[in-house]
């Protein structure tokens, strides 16, 4: 029997027994749905972590010098936390020394943050992230301004009370009014708005556009940190190689300033987006390892169900098999007929699983901040998996059908 004929026949049988077919493919269906949905979400997370999360928080080719890691990954023991809290803070002098000690071209900026209310006329924006920074902060963050300008080096050095704000904060405080030149108050100190940063979107559902940046030496310094201390020094190199050199330079400068002996650990942290991505890829690896296991279990169960259904089908259609053999069907013809039917059954199940998995990923995408990105390979895997499971599960029933004796088979009622 030609292959096309076998497919047509299989589809007829599957369609004629819709109910039975539906139940028999449920295992494969669930496995594939799971595969597609989870892979889509992991892939989406992956893209998100690399494209947005790491670069938004830490920046590309950028490292941060901090007292202890700003992003803590995995379990941090209480002992480690105690050690972190005993570390000296990063001072203005540390920051200046690190900048001076770099042997490669780089952009550096200071960053210190706190949260406070911002008041304009009667309006109050509560609990806004207030950042004390130096003038290159905007360039380093790759923030373009949609209105006004960043503050100048002179304003930064003189600690002028000027403010660059996020677009959502601007909307909230001023609505349709032009924010530039307006005076707001933070903890009673007046600041003049000089610029608005264009929208940055959100991260895991948290807006990235509700912040205010003032020169580190302006009045915010009393808000964000003890005197002459910064949270972080940000250094952005031009390439990954330069970044490594710059990190080595910074490490050397800091170790020498703190008088650390070679055997002693760093009492500061140098953090890059690579570290975050490494951590993510570890989680990712665990998920990607667990996934085949979960999919495998449901698919194996599904395969066993299909095998039983096919054995039943062979038993029910013994007479048909006898007739076909009497009319000239060879063993191979009967074998092919049942293998194709089994494979088609499982592939239809996988197809439904793909559709449902994609829908599930789409729903997650639409209703949560989790981005879902469909991986074409997962669809290919699902189809091959479906057909493969069907073929494997059909092998035994099909060979039983093929070996039936035509005379015996036709005698069956």
């Amino acid at each position, binding site marked *: *029997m*030609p292959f096309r*004929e076998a497919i047509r026949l299989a589809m*007829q049988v599957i369609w*004629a027994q819709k109910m039975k077919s539906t139940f028999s493919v449920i295992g494969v269906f669930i496995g594939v749905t799971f595969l597609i949905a989870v892979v889509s979400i992991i892939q989406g997370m992956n893209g998100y972590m690399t494209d947005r999360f790491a670069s938004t928080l830490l920046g590309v080719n950028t490292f941060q010098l901090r007292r202890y890691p700003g992003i803590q990954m995995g379990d941090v023991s209480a002992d480690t936390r105690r050690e972190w809290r005993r570390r000296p803070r990063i001072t203005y002098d540390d920051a200046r020394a690190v900048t001076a000690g770099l042997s490669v071209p780089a952009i550096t900026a200071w960053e210190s943050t706190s949260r406070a209310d911002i008041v304009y006329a009667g309006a109050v924006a509560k609990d806004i992230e207030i950042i004390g920074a130096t003038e290159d902060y905007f360039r380093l963050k790759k923030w373009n301004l949609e209105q006004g300008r960043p503050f100048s080096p002179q304003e930064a050095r003189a600690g002028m009370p000027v403010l660059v704000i996020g677009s959502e904060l601007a909307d909230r405080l001023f609505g349709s009014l032009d924010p530039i030149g307006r005076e707001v108050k933070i903890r009673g100190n007046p600041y003049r708005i000089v610029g608005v940063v264009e929208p940055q979107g959100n991260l895991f559902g948290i807006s990235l556009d509700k912040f205010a940046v003032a020169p580190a030496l302006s009045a915010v310094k009393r808000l964000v940190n003890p005197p002459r201390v910064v949270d972080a020094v940000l250094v952005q190199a031009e390439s990954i190689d330069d970044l490594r050199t710059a990190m080595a330079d910074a490490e050397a400068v800091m170790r020498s300033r703190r008088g650390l002996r070679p055997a002693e650990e760093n009492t500061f942290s140098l953090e890059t987006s690579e570290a975050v991505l490494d951590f993510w890829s570890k989680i990712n690896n665990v998920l990607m390892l667990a996934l085949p296991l979960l999919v495998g279990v449901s698919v194996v169960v599904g395969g066993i169900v299909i095998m039983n259904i096919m054995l039943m089908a062979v038993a029910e259609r013994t*007479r*048909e098999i*006898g*007739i*076909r*053999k*009497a*009319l*000239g*069907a*060879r*063993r*191979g*013809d009967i074998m092919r007929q049942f293998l194709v039917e089994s494979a088609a059954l499982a592939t239809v199940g996988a197809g439904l699983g793909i559709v449902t998995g994609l829908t599930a990923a789409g729903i997650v995408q639409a209703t949560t901040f989790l981005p879902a990105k469909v991986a074409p390979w997962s669809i290919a895997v699902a189809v091959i998996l479906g057909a493969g499971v069907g073929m494997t599960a059909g092998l035994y029933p099909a060979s039983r059908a093929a070996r039936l004796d*035509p*005379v015996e088979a*036709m005698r069956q009622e």
Partner: protein
Amino acid sequence: MHDAIIIRLAGLTREYRMDAETVHALRGVDVEIRRNEYVAIMGPSGSGKSTLMNVVGCLDTPTAGEYWLNGVEVSAMDDDELARVRNREIGFVFQTFNLLPRASALHNVELPLIYAGVGARERHQQASRALERVGLGDRMHHKPNELSGGQRQRVAIARALVNAPSILLADEPTGNLDSATSAEIMDVFEQLQDQGQTIVMVTHEADIAARARRVITLLDGRVHSDTVREAA
């Protein structure tokens, strides 16, 4: 070519092992059947006529002896070769029709052509012609359960003839039909013989066997009598 030998059975023996016992279904049958003969095989139950039918139909293989079909020894063939012979050389008509219940009359008739590897369009034409030949040109898309017993047997005859087989092999073809319908089917067989078809028919009904020109009677696995009726 009119009296070329189509079937030659020589010392044909078939034994079945059933537990410890050996059943001798055929104990050395020697028969020759020529082209365009119309042969009825008779005998009481247990005489071996069903076994002979299965062996001649290549559904079963003899334990010993030779079976030559159209000059080819089929008694030594393997499973797949036998399937091919069934497909090309033999057209079966069964007592219980043995049609696929879910398939249309047309598709049932197409089945042997599918296994012969005939393309869809060609298959359709040949199957339609075969159905027209048995007077069912207007019932092609009916399912077996939408047809009467006589019509079902006609579908089976169309299916048996569609591959232009060397022999038409009928096993109690009227066993499930009333006498009027039986007579109709016998008329069809006679017409087929007139058109040159070789027919071998197993029956236990004497009046049905009487329609054939030659009657072979089996008893205890051996040929008991072999009589040729003079043409009327």
